[in-house]
């Protein structure tokens, strides 16, 4: 049972993308699919963008998830095109709202899912360093990644403790439940945080020299194609705006 944000172990993937490409894809999808920016000038290109994460998931072997995302997306599209004109009144609004919500959000979620399940923490940090983001941001970011699994561990231990004490919603009330969970969690996190800082400082973190990073990342053919697809969306948007 693993609970983590970004993966820690690298699986073999057929197409390895640079984390920066994934980031560019995330931004592009957020702007044009979720945000529907310049939807007129992009037209059907939005659908191309929306299909990208599903394609990537297929390639990296997450077929089940990809098919699920695809089915929901296509269903929503078909409903919008064929069923909506037949409907009327409040029900029509609800259906339109639901469908467009799904169509807007799903590709972003799929892309996010793909990114976090295929990027290792060290790759991500290496990418941030390559993008010349200062240590003041990359170090706290790596601490956050380090803390996600820790918080899950703490939570499940506290859960067990509450079960043993027989504390539940019924006998303690919602507010107490939240408090009983937060107090030990904060105490443990503070303690772990301090020990973590001590351990990393004695290993030379935050020194005056430029850090190196053994994780090698770089752009390959697939990255360049995908970056071009992203760039095209922005070009279409700008061209549309000038017209």
């Amino acid at each position, binding site marked *: 049972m693993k609970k983590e944000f970004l993966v820690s172990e690298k699986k073999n993937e057929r197409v390895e993308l640079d984390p920066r490409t994934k980031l560019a894809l995330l931004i592009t999808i957020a702007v044009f699919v979720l945000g529907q920016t310049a939807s007129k000038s992009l037209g059907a290109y939005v659908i191309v963008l929306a299909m990208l994460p599903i394609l990537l998931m297929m390639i990296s072997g997450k077929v089940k998830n990809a098919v699920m995302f695809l089915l929901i997306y296509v269903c929503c599209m078909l409903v919008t095109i064929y069923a909506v004109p037949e409907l009327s009144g409040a029900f029509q609004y609800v259906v339109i709202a639901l469908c467009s919500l799904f169509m807007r959000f799903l590709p972003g979620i799929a892309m996010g899912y793909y990114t976090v399940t295929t990027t290792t923490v060290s790759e991500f940090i290496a990418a941030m360093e390559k993008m010349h983001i200062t240590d003041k941001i990359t170090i706290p970011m790596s601490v956050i990644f380090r803390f996600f699994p820790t918080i899950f561990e703490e939570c499940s231990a506290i859960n067990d403790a509450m079960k043993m004490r027989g504390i539940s919603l019924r006998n303690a009330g919602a507010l107490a439940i939240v408090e009983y969970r937060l107090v030990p969690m904060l105490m443990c996190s503070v303690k772990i945080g301090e020990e*973590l*800082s001590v351990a990393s400082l004695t290993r030379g973190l935050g020194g005056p020299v430029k850090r190196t990073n053994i994780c090698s990342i770089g752009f390959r053919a697939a990255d360049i194609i995908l970056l071009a697809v992203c760039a095209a969306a922005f070009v279409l948007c700008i061209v549309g705006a000038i017209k």
Partner: protein
Amino acid sequence: MIEFKDLSFSYSSGNVNKNDETDTNNGSLRNIDLTVRDGEFVLLTGSSGCGKTTLIRFINGLIPNFFSGDIKGEVLLDGKNISEMSLFDLSSRVGSVFQNPRSQFFNVDTTSELAFGCENHGIEVSEIKKRVNEVSEKLAIKKLMGRNIFAMSGGEKQKIACGSVVAVQPDIYVLDEPSSNLDVYAADELRKFLVMLKSAGKTVVIVEHRLYYLADLADRVIVMNEGTIKYDSTMENFRKLSENERAGMGLRALSLTDAADVYKKTVNKEACDSWHINDLRFRFKGENEDVLNIKDESISSGRITAVIGHNGAGKTTFSRVLCGLEKRAKGTIEKDGKAYNSKQRLKKCYMIMQDVNHQLFTESVLDEIFISMEEKNEDEAMDLLRQMDLEKYSSAHPMSLSGGQKQRASIASAMAAKRDIFIFDEPTSGLDLYHMKQVAAALGALADSGKTVVVVTHDVEFVLMCCDEVVHLEEGNITEHYALDSDESRKHLLDFFNV
């Protein structure tokens, strides 16, 4: 060469980590004069709060860079004042390994962690890769490379921590109770690591409560008390002291065989009655093999039963199943003709976890007792606190208590909930002799009141000191179950731990 010249220190109030009400020293130091020569292997020991951790914090620079306080005197590293060096400068010369394997790694995967120190020092990528490779070979952790650290055992995590320090190639190593969260086998692995450092001629200063695994490794033993050095001699001389003399200094056993004689306890009277385990089985979701399979066994009430076994033998699973935390477990336990399934066991049993912080939720110790009671009864609650020696602290915040007090508060709340079976998960990890005795006394009191006490532990000294019976778990089965009432049985127990 490290020289302490008439060093006195006291923490500024924010940094005080009080261990106990009896601990008046708070880790401060008084007029320390000490020289550690290059290549020396020094064992630094003494009861909690005696200042041994403070002393090594001077060597790795955490004082005054991270913990502040009032410093008099000076500490020199090869003639240079350490207080004038930054943590970063020191980090290339002094490697530190700490107590808690869970909070020592900065990365989520092993390879990055081994490279971490070198990366911080800006060493060339090709050189780092070479070193990581070397270290993983030397420490036999090749098969752990590229893996998620969170999924590892405490022993494996501690090995990664050692490896990460070695990769930087410092010439001085300070270790702060590195074995206290480790089982006997992991401690033996740690020992091998120390042998490696010693043969490479490194200077090692190790703070420890558990002494036996260092008996033939350390050159010199320093015992501290109340911030001063009380004993400083060679290991040879230290070995000549009797086990009782060492116990008099508040130290744990140096030789486990002697410990068997010193800690010998009289086994609790005839067991009154017992819990019967019937066909207790458990398998993880999606697995098709049982990780626990106990056909027919009984655990005596009014006695303390130790559960021992190798790593991965199912000790943790056993205790979780026993107290009903694993819903999918099959089988029952039975007493006086009544069988309890896992849901009913949750109301009968209580596990005191290794990290008691997870189990204390409320704003005062008294409230902690109240939420366990069906009806609030202040007299009864105070009575329980009195039994656990916590009366004075009834209105204190549980988080302000010391580790041992938290443990006892947790026991009191379980007693308030009228539990019959108490399961302790490694109650003595990282405790000195005094506190170990205190825990033993609390457990003894529980057993005397007729409760069933089960202790999952790898602390042999503790088992010898207070347990009446031993259950040996292997691959999810109980392979042996015997009373610890004769010299043979004690010898048998030691044989198991002699790796």
